[in-house]
């Protein structure tokens, strides 16, 4: 690791000021410390944001659950009300890394984590994500990469929470300068869709403060994934379906795929294909077809398509309860 100074921010306002001196926000550190050790980041200062007031709580209100950015993944995974109201989110949190990682890794950190692409993580590879001119995964070893992207970089968004929050139609409250702004999950990642260097839409001095997840009566959700190993492994593909069941029909349904694009992958037409229909395998297959319509099964990535189809089926049918 390069040498850096360290400071604990007392308020979000000062955190974003302190970080401007070539700094990085430090929460759980699971991603950041690895980046520094591998020479991918050389911050002058680490701004510890764990002391920010009000960022460690999960508050359950009538119509939403507000989750502080510093809530650990373990806390979220084990939170009784979150498990009941937002099962997909709790399951997604429980599927992150290992127990030790979940004990320190935070909600904010999981959402803002950087690419795990093995070219990006190689100290000596200067790929397009690091300001170079090419994506080495294109035509290279890309079995863990994206089926969809608008830019040159093929690395997918691997945040478990992003997939769940996308399907749950959540919003993220971000400190931007002296103000806070609220972003939809799609907005939180939209830059990564078009800009190869972006991991998400946030600037270096923008900080996630909390996540707000709407909760409607009778809402259901399910998280399913497949990885090569049973635990402590990155999902090859993950899927979250969320919605309500009214009279046996799906309402307000959204399906998102993870690890297939630089953003959590949602397609309006796919959701529409399920709206007002029963959560059957046949209907799920139609939704999956629309979700995967523009997939580019290049080189080693094509296998993600049948997996995604199967996961959509399992997530949607799981909503039947």
């Amino acid at each position, binding site marked *: 690791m390069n040498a*850096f*100074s*360290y400071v604990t*921010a*007392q*308020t979000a306002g000062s955190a974003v000021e302190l970080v401007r001196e070539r700094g990085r926000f430090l929460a759980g550190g699971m991603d950041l410390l690895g980046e520094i050790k591998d020479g991918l980041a050389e911050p002058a200062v680490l701004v510890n944001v764990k002391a920010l007031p009000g960022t460690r709580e999960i508050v359950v209100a009538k119509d939403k659950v507000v989750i502080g950015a510093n809530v650990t993944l373990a806390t979220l995974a084990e939170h009784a009300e979150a498990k009941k109201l937002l099962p997909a989110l709790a399951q997604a949190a429980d599927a992150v890394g290992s127990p030790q990682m979940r*004990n320190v890794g935070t909600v904010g950190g999981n959402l803002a984590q950087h690419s795990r692409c093995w070219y990006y993580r190689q100290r000596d590879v200067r790929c397009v994500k690091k300001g170079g001119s090419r994506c080495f995964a294109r035509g290279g070893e890309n079995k863990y990469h994206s089926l969809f992207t608008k830019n040159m970089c093929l690395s997918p968004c691997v945040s478990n929470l992003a997939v769940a929050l996308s399907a749950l139609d959540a919003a993220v409250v971000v400190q931007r300068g002296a103000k806070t702004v*609220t972003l939809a999950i*799609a907005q939180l990642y939209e830059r990564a869709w078009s800009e190869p260097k972006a991991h998400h839409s946030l600037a270096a001095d923008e900080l996630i403060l909390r996540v707000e997840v709407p909760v409607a009566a009778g809402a259901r959700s399910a998280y399913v994934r497949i990885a090569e190993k049973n635990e402590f492994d990155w999902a090859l593909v993950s899927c979250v379906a969320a919605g309500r069941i009214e009279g046996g029909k799906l309402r307000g349904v959204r399906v998102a795929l993870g690890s297939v694009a630089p953003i959590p992958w949602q397609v309006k037409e796919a959701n529409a294909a399920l709206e007002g229909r029963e959560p059957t395998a046949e209907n799920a297959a139609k939704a999956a077809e629309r979700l995967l319509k523009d997939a580019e099964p290049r080189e080693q990535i094509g296998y993600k398509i049948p997996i995604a189809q199967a996961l959509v089926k399992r997530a949607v049918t799981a909503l039947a309860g």
Partner: protein
Amino acid sequence: MKRNPGDAAAPSGSEVFLASGLSRRTFLKSLGTSAVTAAAMGAEQVSQGLAQANAERPVGPGAVPVTLTVNGEKKTFRLEPRVTLLEALRGEAGLTGAKEACDRATCGACTVLLDGTPVYACSMLAIEAQGAEITTIEGIAKNGELSALQKAMVDKDGLQCGYCSPGMVMVLTALLRKNPRPTEAEVRHAIAGNLCRCGSYPRIVAAARAASGQSAGTKLTFISSHDHAVA
């Protein structure tokens, strides 16, 4: 599914501003340049602001005093902020029980407890562990007496080379405190972040079950010469 940016509830003041009501930069500037402004803020605001500004003074990158409470004992070291908890424990505190095996939060050999919760010491800064009760493997046996889990690890042979053992013991110690009678699946889930290349997992799971008073039967069948001669 999109929302308009900024349509959520207005931010509360405490998140953005110093307790004094001014932004950090404005506050510091005003203190430095205008006694009048400072006076106008009132003594309470100034002292709050000063306390915060003081708390927000960056330390390092050179070595700074770092006080760690390890196995109940407070120790102060001079460490650069970049020093990890594992480096501090092994290199400075002389506690080599927690092992360095990957240095990237991928194997669990460095696991210690922070306020009773298992963490990877390789992937946490020592400076961040200040104020927490740190328990290392050296702090588990009391007066040379092995814990029930440690005894079971030995008796059930929950180890081979033993390099992963300290991490396994830490994770399982935390598990058993929280869940005194874990199922086999719960034990496996708890040690999912700890790798053992020798493949001792079946016996580690057996040890955790035995330590919690549950059956940890062997899957070994011993067939005597007589029997297999007949077969």
